[in-house]
């Protein structure tokens, strides 16, 4: 755990990996990828950090309570986005039918509620990876 090269490389690589995960999630409706792929990349970045710097340092950055809260946030975010369609007078999870503006196809802020839902899926998948890793490592 005291390897200088490993520490330096990982401390620089983890932000880039995490940013790439955010990029994949945000561009989920434009390019290959999406919530599931980007979310697992975001989760793996934190797992990599925990593997190199230890679980204690990781839990100092993201406390266990925050992890639990974020885990519940993912599905809540998704379902809450679905309620927007109901508030606009249509079915649950309605997007274009409910009159949400779709925007210009190909730009990041397009496709109505799809990017918002993708963020929820990304949070959910990322936290699943991290929480399961933390729970299993704590076991030892």
């Amino acid at each position, binding site marked *: 755990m005291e390897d200088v090269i490993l520490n330096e490389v990982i401390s620089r690589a983890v932000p880039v990996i995490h940013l790439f995960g955010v990029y994949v999630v945000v561009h*989920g*409706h434009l390019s290959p990828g999406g919530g599931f792929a980007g979310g697992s990349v975001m989760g793996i970045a934190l797992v990599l950090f925990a593997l190199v710097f230890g679980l204690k340092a990781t839990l100092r950055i993201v406390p266990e309570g925050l992890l639990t809260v974020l885990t519940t946030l993912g599905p809540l975010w998704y379902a809450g986005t679905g309620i927007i369609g109901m508030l606009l007078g249509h079915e649950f999870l309605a997007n274009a039918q409910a009159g949400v503006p779709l925007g210009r196809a190909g730009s990041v802020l397009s496709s109505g509620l799809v990017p918002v839902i993708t963020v929820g*899926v990304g949070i959910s998948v990322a936290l*699943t990876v991290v929480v399961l890793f933390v729970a*299993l490592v704590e076991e030892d």
Partner: protein
Amino acid sequence: MRPRHLVFLSIPLVLAVGVVLLLVMIEMPPYGTPNPTFNYVMERYNKHGLEETGATNIVTGIILDYRAYDTLIETTVLFTATMGALLTLRARRDKTCGRRHP
């Protein structure tokens, strides 16, 4: 009943299932011909997917707009699995540490 008798019973069973499967195979369309039953959904997605969902990634358009319910339940499955694992693991940890979670 002894296992030897079960072997003799299993032979007609396997033959019957085999005959049924062969009959089903005769009904299948020849390889390579377009199957008319399920293609209209695919055509609809390919033709109107972009204008109806606004997503250039048609896969995302399908799973998060046309099939949004499906993906919501998928997310719930992930959440349930995480919570189940967490509850069992933490319960054991708290028991060994002699602590109690509310």
